[in-house]
């Protein structure tokens, strides 16, 4: 073994001399791959946006145009002004209310609960933690039928409550924030305890300010999840004015399959807030996702 290692070491300098050229080639090949992939990922989105600004005639032409030949906002006029059947602007407002509402509820309830689970002593703590976290592994489909029936009993069907509240019960927020609180150094709280500050005061004045990035990340993930939610809203919202954007897009597609410019205008309305939020807070979203992954 030693001999082999020695032999290899003796050849090391020559391979080191070759390295720069190989490294440059690697980087070059990587760039080619990266740019090719970028086209694959961006082109469909560009086509969506461009189609939204076409006339119906151009949108349904066989020869595709990536930049509209006769740019037109007719599709947006149509979905924003006309139509009691497809009130896209109303869906946008509904989606905003549901997504912001749910994200706020998730952050508030999960922060309180996660703090208790991370830092307080009480009976049943271990069991409660295990039960809450383990629901992350339960396939969500089993909740669909009973949730529908519960929403029916609460008379929340066909209202925004139906798509705002149930999703806030998910355990992901508690899980993420508990991880985060456990990792915070305890010194600061201990100082506050010595000052005889109340637990709520410690939470509010000491813990929350330290947790802003974690809370922002959770807010973003919760917002995006709700904004994009499709299955539940599709089945618990019925009247056109009660829909959120995702089931609305389904309705738009179902009501007129050939008005692609109108469907794409709707898709653009659903895409822009999510994409803008992602671009502004890219780091938070990506780090949030990667910590979920690693720690999960």
């Amino acid at each position, binding site marked *: 073994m030693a001999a082999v290692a020695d032999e290899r070491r003796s050849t090391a300098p020559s391979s080191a001399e070759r390295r720069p050229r190989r490294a440059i080639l690697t980087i070059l090949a990587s760039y080619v791959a990266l740019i090719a992939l970028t086209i694959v990922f961006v082109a469909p989105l560009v086509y969506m946006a461009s189609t939204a600004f076409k006339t119906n005639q151009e949108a349904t032409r066989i020869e595709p145009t990536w930049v509209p030949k006769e740019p037109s906002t007719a599709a947006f006029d149509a979905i924003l002004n006309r139509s009691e059947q497809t009130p896209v602007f109303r869906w946008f407002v509904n989606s905003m209310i549901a997504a912001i509402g749910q994200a706020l509820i998730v952050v508030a309830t*999960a922060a309180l*609960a996660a703090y*208790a689970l*991370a830092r*307080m002593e*009480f009976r049943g703590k271990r069991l409660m933690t295990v039960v809450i976290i383990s629901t992350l592994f339960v396939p969500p489909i*089993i909740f669909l039928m009973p949730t529908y029936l519960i929403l029916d009993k609460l008379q929340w069907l066909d209202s925004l409550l139906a798509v705002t509240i149930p999703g806030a019960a998910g355990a992901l927020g508690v899980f993420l924030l508990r991880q985060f609180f456990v990792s915070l150094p305890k010194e600061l709280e201990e100082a506050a305890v010595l000052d005889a500050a109340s637990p709520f005061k410690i939470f509010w004045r000491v813990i929350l300010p330290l947790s802003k990035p974690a809370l922002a990340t959770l807010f973003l993930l919760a917002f995006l999840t709700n904004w994009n939610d499709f299955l539940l809203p599709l089945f618990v919202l019925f009247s056109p004015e009660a829909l959120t954007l995702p089931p609305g897009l389904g309705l738009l597609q179902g009501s007129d399959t050939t008005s692609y410019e109108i469907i794409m205008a709707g898709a653009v309305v*659903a895409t822009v807030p999510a994409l803008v939020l*992602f671009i502004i807070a890219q780091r938070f979203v990506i780090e949030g996702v990667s910590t979920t*992954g690693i720690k999960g």
Partner: protein
Amino acid sequence: MGSGGPSTIERVGGGRPLPPLIGSPRIRARGTSSAGSGWIAYLFLAPYLTLFTVFVVVPAIYGVWVSFHSWDLLLPNKPWVGLDNYRNLFDTNSAVGDDFWNAMKATAIFTVFSVPLLVVLPLGVALILNQKFRGRNFFRAVYFAPYVLGVAVIGVLWTLLLDPNIGVVNYYLEKVGASDNIAWTTSLPWAWVALVGVTVWWTLGYNAVIYLAGLQDISRELYEAAKVDGASRWGRFRHVTLPGLRPVLVFIITITILASANMFGQAYLITGGAPGNETRTAIMLIAQEGLQNFRLGSAAAMSFVLALFLMLVSLVTFFVFRERKV
């Protein structure tokens, strides 16, 4: 994480005088401070636990109860039928059993074809992104971008792109000399190619980001050591990268299997289950059975059988790929 243990106390001790209480092993071991206890903790937990009870605990139990009934929302009576809903699913002569296993088969086909792609391709992308070069974060963001769009946007967008007559996919296929009238949404195997392809496009960036975080956790020194030992590029991948990624790999495989097995929106919007019901997935059937035909008992039974399958698959994945103890 990882800043527990004695070092914390030492650092604290160095900063300012501490009461003996804080150094006591019990408190350190439990990882708690005396920030609050007893009923105050329950007060903190109350809002979340209310939600958790009403929308997680109660549905889980209520769902089982419903599955033991012929629970038709349109009928006044919901008679107890015991295990009949389950028995029907395993009776291949019954229409509902037939539908169910067709949907399970569709789900399995989709999972078998999408998971390997979604495990391997994002790893390749992450390996490229893990090098030092300009614009790394830009590319990472671009590949992740489709994931922040909902399945509804993805569905209607790809319905347009895959349109057999005016879609750009067929248009460019013709340009490169391939067939130009593939019925992506209404024929086999093209419907599966379309659904798998769209899903890979949509979620590749998500898996890549998780891989990338895992790659960055692997110590550089290990690579340096392997280089010194003369390991080739492939050797370093095989003996440093892969072992270092094992937990991340297990995680990715598990979540990707679960996500694929829960596929719904793509099929609902792009193929509508066509041709026939060939691409109708289990989730799609359950939703239709329960919330369109209002046979909630039968749908609940289906959802538990599916859930059992998924949990078994996760367990198998976990044991196959778990860390081997030396």
